[in-house]
């Protein structure tokens, strides 16, 4: 039995989850990473993607997050997402709307740096679209 640690998933609007968990997979900017108990203190930005949480009770919960960052300590992990929804509530429509907004933002932006960043986000979202149930 793996050690449990505290995990919190917060969006600016509400606290989505605050539980004891044994394992969390987060979509970090430099690639997916799995966080177990006693992880070295790490701070990482995350991209849009799927967060998989294995609760201490053995259940698995999945959340779709859109950007943000994670604060990882040996005793716990806090994920601050710009916006997050449970996977069950994440629909294709929601994603399509985000993609559409992003597209129009890409068309309107002037700075190249910003556009590159947005295009990365767009790629993440499109990728995410493939993993969601239709």
């Amino acid at each position, binding site marked *: 039995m793996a050690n449990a640690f505290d995990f919190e998933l917060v969006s600016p609007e509400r606290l989505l989850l605050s539980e004891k968990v044994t394992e969390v997979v987060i979509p*970090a900017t430099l690639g997916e990473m799995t966080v177990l108990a006693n992880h070295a203190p790490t701070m990482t930005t995350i991209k849009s993607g799927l967060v998989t949480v294995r609760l201490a009770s053995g259940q698995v919960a999945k959340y779709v997050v859109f950007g943000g960052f994670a604060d990882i300590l040996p005793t716990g992990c806090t994920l601050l997402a710009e916006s997050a929804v449970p996977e069950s509530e994440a629909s294709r429509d929601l994603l399509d709307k985000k993609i559409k907004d992003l597209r129009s933002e890409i068309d309107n932006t002037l700075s190249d740096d910003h556009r590159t960043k947005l295009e990365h986000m767009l790629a993440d979202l499109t990728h995410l679209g493939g993993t969601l149930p239709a």
Partner: protein
Amino acid sequence: MPSLKDLKNRIASVKATQKITKAMKMVAAAKLRRAQEAAEAARPYAERMNRVLASLSAANAENAEAPLLLKGTGKNQVHLLIVATGERGLAGGFNSSIIRMARDHALKLISEGKTVKILTVGRKGNDILRRTFRENIVDYVTFREVKQLGFVNANEVAQKVLALFNAGEFDVATLFYARFQSVISQVATAQQIIPAKFEDAAAGSSASALYEYEPGEQEILEDLLPRNIAVQIFRALLENNASFYGAQMSAMDNATRNAGEMINKLTLSYNRQRQAQITKELIEIISGAEAL
């Protein structure tokens, strides 16, 4: 001296007003509870964000290449005032106290020879500030159509502010809103958001050395600082919202009580006059009978 009929009409109209203010008080109370819950729900995010940024900024305080959002442009010439007010009135001194604070601040800056630009959020503030500072208002955001204030709304404001900052339009940004203390007390507050200031910068510095950063400390800081602006604005908007309903609730409570007092007074003079009239009629009848 108003006639009996006039008095009766006035009593009826004050009663109607009282019913309206009473209903508004109830509505404000219900909305206040929801606004307060929203403000509470947003707190954990803002707190963690603040903690992380405090430790990061403490570590980067000496860094010459720190992002401009953190250390400022090095100038203090052009000020942006972001004034967040309500969309509606009928909330006692809520709007005017925020506006007064913003106006005093603006006048002080102008007298010091600084340039002032104003971004208003909310219709009321825009209407009133437009009278005095027509040339200074650079942008105006309204949430009239918005039912439930969300992070997207705050982000919209933040993007405007950041676009102005990146274009070098201002050096210092201050946010004006009413902090929610309790139902009867809301405090107009000025908070500097650019360059960023953190309350417990010293406390966080010790932990920062242990962290591993992915991708890098600098990149994270650059990613987080703009986001922090949106979070700060979001928090201010939520506090403002709660304050608005708090102020409205107590204003409407007062109005209902005043209407009650007025009804009592009017009823008293109505009854007095009615009695006076009856007495007068009696005297007329009696003296008429005596004259026979």
